[in-house]
């Protein structure tokens, strides 16, 4: 039997660079031909890596969406890929440019282009996870069976993630990157300083501002603080007074050990022992920061593992590691897929254990939370489910769902149910019996989601036995 493949695209619009990768994911049935299918992604290959361009900006904050559109079209062309063939993917806007208005601009420009994907602004947490997976940190952690962190030092931010095998243990983000200060390569004069660094310069009382001519030694006090904060971020050394200032959203909890680290992001390519002669070659402080990191306590106190990707970690993560497949025993009606960007409404475990009426009431109440200005859009109802459910449990869940989601069913919104435990096919059959005739529904399992996540579901693959799923974790922790 020939294995199915999914062509997936990842586009990363970062603070400083924009890139695109195309990946081929191979779907394989791991069970023998006569057993219940067990379908999983068996191989992830990056088949095309785009050029890396500086993110086209209209001003410091606004992305030039038209230029992005040209870039994507050009890359598809170079890769000899027809946009119709792309089934899944993620377009994420990360770092300092991750703003809602940018997402809308890019969505508009790329509509019908990237393959009909909703463009997401990745929160710093999602970006951290994607970069870590792209860097192969989870693989390293699985092999060594130790917690392993990745620090993705990009242009504007440093994204941290800690893996325990494939499980994400923690994430963090700091406003530290190679392009916090931009310098004209020829004149060696500063052309841009990020707001937080301006505050730092003021606090340190340094004679540095836009237009100042600089050398590595005049910048040294700033670089030292940045490196010190990064050391702090993985639990090394005394807290720097500016640690809190550089936090983007939150630091790591650090209630666990991190014996090993990987580095990714553009600055990971600059971790050199010796400073090169043309120190401002990239027009920023990336080389200085990389060199200082190389000599930092991180390198002496932690085991540094070679990462699979550096500057491309985030985009490879977005292209290859965001798509997963559902469980292999599921049920759905045809004609409603694909489904893009639906919010997850996850029921609490104690609500799940209630009787039909109470379960229905709590589902109905929670659906109401998603009413925006009296407008109700569809939501995905997610449950933990039971490990070895009784038939009566299935009936209870189904009855509770159909009663509780009455408001969605009256609007004829497709009913979409996610369960973590393996019970979706039985539950789907029970829903079928209770829903109006020919009512569209999807009921899949083996997908772990939390409130605040968004989800994309692709067209069925592997003879219709599984659905590709992208869970976009926008909130974490």
């Amino acid at each position: 039997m020939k294995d199915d493949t999914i062509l997936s695209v990842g586009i990363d619009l970062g603070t400083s660079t924009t890139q695109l990768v195309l990946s081929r994911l191979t779907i394989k049935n791991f069970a023998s031909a006569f057993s219940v299918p067990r379908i999983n992604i068996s191989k992830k290959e990056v088949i095309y890596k785009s050029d890396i361009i500086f993110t086209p900006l209209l001003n410091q904050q606004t992305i030039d969406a038209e230029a992005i559109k040209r870039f994507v079209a050009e890359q598809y062309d170079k890769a000899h890929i027809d946009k119709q063939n792309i089934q899944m993917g993620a377009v994420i806007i990360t770092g300092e440019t991750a703003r809602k208005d940018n997402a809308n601009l890019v969505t508009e420009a790329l509509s019908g282009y990237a393959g009909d994907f909703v463009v997401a602004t990745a929160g710093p947490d999602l970006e951290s996870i994607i970069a870590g997976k792209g860097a192969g940190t989870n693989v390293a952690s699985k092999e060594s069976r130790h917690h392993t962190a990745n620090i993705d030092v990009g242009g504007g931010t440093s994204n941290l993630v800690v893996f325990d095998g494939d499980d994400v243990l923690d994430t963090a983000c700091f406003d530290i990157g190679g392009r916090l200060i931009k310098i004209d390569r020829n004149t060696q004069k500063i052309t841009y300083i990020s707001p937080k660094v301006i505050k730092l310069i003021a606090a340190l009382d340094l004679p540095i501002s836009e237009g100042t001519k600089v050398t590595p030694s005049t910048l040294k006090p700033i670089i030292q603080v940045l490196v010190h904060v990064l050391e702090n971020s993985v639990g090394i050394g005394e807290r720097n007074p500016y640690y809190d200032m550089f936090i983007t959203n939150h630091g790591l909890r650090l209630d666990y050990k991190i014996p090993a680290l990987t580095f990714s992001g553009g600055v990971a390519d600059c971790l050199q022992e010796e400073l090169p002669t043309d120190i401002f070659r990239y027009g920023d402080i990336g080389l200085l920061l990389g060199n200082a990191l190389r000599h930092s306590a991180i390198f002496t106190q932690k085991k540094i593992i070679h990462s699979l990707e550096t500057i491309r970690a985030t985009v490879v993560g977005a292209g290859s590691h965001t798509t997963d497949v559902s469980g292999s025993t599921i049920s759905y009606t045809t004609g409603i897929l694909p489904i893009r960007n639906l919010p997850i409404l996850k029921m609490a475990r104690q609500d799940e254990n209630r009787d039909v009426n109470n379960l229905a009431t709590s589902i109905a109440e929670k659906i109401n939370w998603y009413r925006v200005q009296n407008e109700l859009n569809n939501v995905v109802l997610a449950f933990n489910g039971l490990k070895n459910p009784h038939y009566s449990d299935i009936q209870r869940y189904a009855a509770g769902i159909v009663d509780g989601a009455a408001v969605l069913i009256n609007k004829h919104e497709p009913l979409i149910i996610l369960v973590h435990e393996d019970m979706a096919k039985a539950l789907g059959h029970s829903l079928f019996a209770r829903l109006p005739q020919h009512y569209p529904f999807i009921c899949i399992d083996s997908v772990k989601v939390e409130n605040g996540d968004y989800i994309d579901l692709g067209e069925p693959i592997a003879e219709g036995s599984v659905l590709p799923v992208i869970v976009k974790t926008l909130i974490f922790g």
Partner: protein
Amino acid sequence: MNEQDLKSMIENILTEMTDNSKKEDNSPAAVTASDSVESTESDEILDDITEIDLRKQFLVPHPHDREGYLKMKSFTPARLGMWRCGSRYKTASVLRFRADHAAAQDAVFSDVNPEIPKSMGFVMTQTTCKTKDEYLTRPDHGRKFSDDMAEKIRTNTEKSPKIQMVVGDGLSSAAIEANVREIIPAIKQGLKVYGLDFDEKNVIYVKYCRVGAEDHIGEITNADVVCLLVGERPGLVTAKSMSAYIAYKPTMGMPEARRTVVSNIHDGGLPAVEAGAYIAELLDKMVRLKKSGIDLKAVENETK
């Protein structure tokens, strides 16, 4: 009770025993201790050692990497990390092994509580085997029905049904008792999605049942598809594993390749209700394509 409690309990008992024998004659303290051991008869029941999750039980005293070992253990039901006492297993491990082995034996040697199939309205039948011993020693007798029994099946079931459901004890009564009440309604519910159905009062229950019994039933009822739910030979991991052997128009002596199997139906494998839903889809496929086993796979691959 967790593993730690069990360990300390066993340690206490052992130290008390050795202390008593050593000091019995000369120490009055020991005498009172031994008295108190004899006199404390309580109504408390010892915790069930089979409740301990073997994948989480880890008895190595000073492991170099506890987390790593436990992670490896989570992938297998094998009894790893059970440690030892001298050159032997620890008491807890030996008792657990014997308990699991006893459960497997019980599952083979005890009968399914007849109230379960009766209460579900099944047609009660028996192969030509008269006793458990005959059933275990003569597999061929477990694949056939007597003429009287064949007549009973004929008169109590529908003629030429699309789907004939059969439940057989097989080698594990525990598997049937644990799963059949969950899977039958799940299959029934699933079949409705495909416009198919069966009636519980037409389901045949077979005592002393081998897989081949479904072939004889296929010939007697002239059903399109026969689906046999049967208890599997128990092992030390679970005694409650059930399988479904499904065949299109089975005949006695047909090649085994014509059966489609759904195995490992138990609470640690494929949950019974989810298996039922999957079996319903399979049954629909077989009724439509008029094939089962390897033939069915071949047709599926062609149409791909």
